[in-house]
């Protein structure tokens, strides 16, 4: 099974008056067909920029993009907007974090979906409208015939996100990139949306790249997980491997600072001291070293993202895997 999306050493820098901010510092990964790949990281980790760069949505004039993103063998970096048109929406679709601001407030929801369909297919307005109704129905919006004529502000947050998902799926793309799709939603609504995404992934063999900062969301839907820190991937593993055999101290820190409902209430949370480094001048060695309690002399050399415990489990840490187990136990119970 070959990957449908391949990202190779992607770098995105933004030139500012203080220097170049290296938002994405060499990211490489693959997406298999029908796979749900979660990219986890905190703000500033570069996960959103990575996602948006894949479809060429990073358009700031001061952005410098190098590296390769290839979809089914076709190179996407360097293509202009017109060339990217048959990829966007048709093959790779996107859903964003805030459905209120991501939908145009002055157009009816049905029109926005129809617009997308008609931009790619030669169909009449009526046909596109019918399709829009069916799409709304397929994502669980009740009364789609009526609601297709409503404006975005007439929907609740969860319903709006469903509309966005419906719109993204209009042309039956192969890949859906969801950038923090549930962050702005209530937890009960989040559960509904995650369930929907899971169902879509299984029914349609839809590959999903899910950007999130919430490890609970990851546990709910992901097959594979990338952990990003300061613009780089620090760990790349399957869902079970990340949760039950994490290999990078940052991942331990994330897992350890979680306030889980199914564990006893500890007196003090394991916290990661300090803050993420400035991306203007990132550390030359391991970027997590300044905050890492296990840092040692080798860490001033940047570790490569490699499999150190076998299989496809990649990590970016010099620590000896055997040594890691005891250190990890101190952070994660």
């Amino acid at each position, binding site marked *: 099974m070959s990957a449908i999306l391949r990202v190779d050493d992607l770098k995105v820098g933004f030139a500012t008056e203080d220097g170049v901010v290296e938002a994405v510092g060499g990211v490489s990964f693959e997406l298999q067909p029908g796979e749900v790949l979660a990219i986890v990281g*905190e*703000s500033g980790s570069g996960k959103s920029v990575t996602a948006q760069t894949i479809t060429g949505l990073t358009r700031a004039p001061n952005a410098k993009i190098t590296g390769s993103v290839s979809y089914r063998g076709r190179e996407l970096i360097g293509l202009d907007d017109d060339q990217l048109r048959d990829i966007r929406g048709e093959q790779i679709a996107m859903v964003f974090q805030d459905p209120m601001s991501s939908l145009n407030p002055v157009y009816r929801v049905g029109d926005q979906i129809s617009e997308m369909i008609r931009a790619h297919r030669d169909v009449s307005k009526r046909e596109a409208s019918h399709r829009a109704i069916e799409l709304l129905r397929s994502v669980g919006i009740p009364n789609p015939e009526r609601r297709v004529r409503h404006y975005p502000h007439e929907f*609740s*947050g*969860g*319903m709006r996100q469903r509309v966005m998902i419906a719109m993204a799926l209009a042309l039956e793309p192969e890949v859906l990139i969801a950038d923090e799709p549930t962050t702005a939603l*209530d*937890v*009960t*609504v*989040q*559960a*509904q949306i*995650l*369930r929907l995404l899971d169902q879509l992934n299984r029914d349609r063999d839809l590959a999903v790249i899910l950007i999130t*900062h*919430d*490890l*609970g*969301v*990851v*546990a*709910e839907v992901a097959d594979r997980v990338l952990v990003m820190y300061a613009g780089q991937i620090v760990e790349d593993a399957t*869902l*079970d491997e990340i*949760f039950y055999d994490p290999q990078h101290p940052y991942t331990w*820190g*994330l*897992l350890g*600072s*979680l*306030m*889980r*409902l*199914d564990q006893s*209430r*500890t007196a*003090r*949370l*394991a*916290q*990661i*001291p300090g*803050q993420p480094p400035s991306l203007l001048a990132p550390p030359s060695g391991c970027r997590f070293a300044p905050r890492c309690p296990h840092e040692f002399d080798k860490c001033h050399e940047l570790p490569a993202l490699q499999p150190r415990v076998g299989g496809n489990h990649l990590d970016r840490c010099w620590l000896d895997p055997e040594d890691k187990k005891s250190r990890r136990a101190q952070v994660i119970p």
Partner: protein
Amino acid sequence: MSKGDPLLEVTDLVKHFPIKAGVVIDHEVARVRAVDGVSLTLREGETLGLVGESGCGKSTLCRAILQLTQPTSGSVRFLGEELVGRSRRDLRPLRRQMQMIFQDPFASLNPRKRVGQIVGDPLELHGLAKGAELKRRVQELLERVGLNPEHYNRYPHEFSGGQRQRIGIARALALHPKLIVADEPVSALDVSVQAQIINLLKELQDEFGLSYLFVAHDLGVVRHVSDRVAVMYLGKVVENSATEDLYRKPIHPYTNALLSAVPIPDPKRNAARERLVLQGDVPSPIDPPPGCSFHTRCPWATEICTSDEPALVERATAHVAACHHPRNVEEPAAQGR
């Protein structure tokens, strides 16, 4: 007042926002029932967690309690004194004892003021310090919350989100209040920073003898910091109990749904769980459903739920819930079928 005495007693607090329309003269056509009759008690030294989703009224409740917005009706007794209906002058000395931490670390600090000023203003306003003494106390506070006291003259935009929240905490702490109302203090922060702030809040509570009303939508966070938890839905408290009781034996169906909806960051356990996924959306607080306001989404709702509003009664030890068909209680619910 010693630990365990009631510090804050809220009784039947109501805050409605009228919606007006009209040709020449506006008259009320509807009201947003943001807070629709809330009663709760916070004891000295205790942390009461308040959970609910958007639109449940928890933020409005905070403001109504602190008299930042005038309640429509009801009573708020703080340190034995009634707050509702008091003049601003009367409230001033009481305000020293109750402070607030806000959710958005970017919006809650005046970008044109220096950090030292922001933290020192409360002290100056209440005439507690000035000049060199003021500076000293402010720097002490900055240090206590984990900031560098040398950054006294910096502006908020020079700090990260987590650091700004610390500034907000320092400001709230300046007057050594008895009560701090924290309205979603960590929601806007990254996960790793949340842990830092939560740890700080707990330390400060022990050191300064603070009591917290801790509002959040994240159930994990609330569980970690609270002694007791109250769950809100559409302007009313639907359940209130000691923390562990709420999480181990939730009584109200909404609480059950909330807990079920939170994904556990443990794939195997998460998959093995029985999930309760609610249908539909939260109804509008302008037109809440009759009877029990949760009945439109409740999997166990029956006839009586559509007509009779259930009272908040004790279902287990120090554990109240408002439901005709409570879950997880020993005695079977005998009301209406």
